[in-house]
């Protein structure tokens, strides 16, 4: 993976050697960035072209593997295709989703058992389930 990463995205050494790389005062940093921007157009173009090609290759492999392994259930046809050509959508009366904070919900309850405080923590991956 590291080798893949190095092909499509990379750390660009700043001019001046290692002594200048790292956390620096703001003015020095700005100067360093300006130096980097002055790299030859050919170098930058080659970098961008290489990045694009490798990213496409990586994305192709990743997306292909995802698309071919997901066990997506088959959808039952309900005659909705006819309505899609119109400008208004279907009548939907039940809520289809909940907007809530970050999905995971933690419920913490405290109770005393035999004189000891017991904290019970329950993690609910989401606020809704269909089963």
């Amino acid at each position, binding site marked *: 993976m590291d080798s893949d990463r190095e092909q499509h995205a990379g*750390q660009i050494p700043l001019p001046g050697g290692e002594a200048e790389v790292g956390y620096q005062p703001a003015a020095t940093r700005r100067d360093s960035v300006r130096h980097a921007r002055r790299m030859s157009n050919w170098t930058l173009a080659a970098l961008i072209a290489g990045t*694009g090609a490798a990213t496409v290759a990586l994305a192709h492999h990743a997306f292909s593997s995802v698309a071919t392994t997901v066990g997506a259930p088959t959808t039952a046809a309900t005659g*909705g295709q006819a*309505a899609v050509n119109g400008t208004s959508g279907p009548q*939907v009366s039940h809520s*289809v989703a*909940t907007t809530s904070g970050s999905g995971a*919900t933690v419920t913490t309850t405290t109770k005393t058992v035999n004189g000891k405080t017991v904290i019970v923590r329950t993690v609910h991956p*989401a606020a809704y389930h*269909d089963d």
Partner: protein
Amino acid sequence: MTTMTSVRERAAAAAWRHVHTGDRAVAVAQREALGTTARLAVWPPEHADAAMAAVDAVLAALDLQASRFRPDSEISWLHRSAGGLFMLSGGLAEAVRVALEAARWTGGLTDPTVGEALISLGYDRDFAAIDPDSREPPPAPVPAPGWQEVRLDGPLLWLPASVRLDLGATAKGLGSDRAARAVMAATGHTGGALISLGGDIATAGIPPRGGWPIVAAGRSGHDGADSPRTGPASTGLSQLVRLPHGAVATSSISCRSWRRAGRVLHHIVDPRTGLPAGGPWQTASVAAMTCADANAAATAAIVAGEAAPGWLTAAGLPARLVSHTGEVRHIGGWPEHDGGQIEVPPGSHVYAGTGPRAGAR
């Protein structure tokens, strides 16, 4: 090979499950993804298989780009490199750009440089793996270095060695936006789709009549309002609303919380202090044209505390705030009654959805 095997395993483990809502005109399915739940609603239902594949591709790519909990992600690789100038992939560059634009728009109420602060609080791994009741006291808070320390010019990122990025205030929203667009592209730009990532919802295409019916939760996990068997009626502090277009996101401090040395911590950090945000609001729901905007604004509202209503009003965004005591405030035209439509103002502050934005850094 390891990465490809890992992708296959993750995909195989994350199969979609259909959700029966009571309406046959729309297909609804959900799966676990990005440490939370992804939900898809699409019409016509015949589009469901193509839509699910499109969402899978978007989420797999986002996870590889921006998850700081995956050692093989691009952002983890950045952090291991201890600072410098980097050439980012297009996807991560866009995610960082959106996070920086959000920081600029919110005046630093959201800040992608809070990574170190979150780690110091114990949020250093996938949420499910965090020790829920660690006795180890948290170290001194680490205020965010500040988003201005990070420079982005196209795909070139300057990241100081001391800065760790966390894109939590915008990444899920951006993922929903990307997924909604991908679904429409995969289905020939016909029909309509709604994508929810952990409750951050984006829509695209033609909505159902009156808008997508969704529930705005009051207290996550306490009212169960989204159970398909409860029907459209709201319960407790939750509210049924309709979203004709745009997006809605919610931030809440009642979920993703844990304890260290008896102190309850949560994942929304005030960048100014490095501590979990205080303030009167337990939950903030915000509507905007893009989910990245809504995600950032909802997080900013929690961090802003008492100043949230004023900030949201100035931003012109419909919002619903629920306080710790159960008080509900509707702002910027958010409907006060069940079934009301949310009218989302046009335009985006943080995510144009196409290519690099001029002036982003």
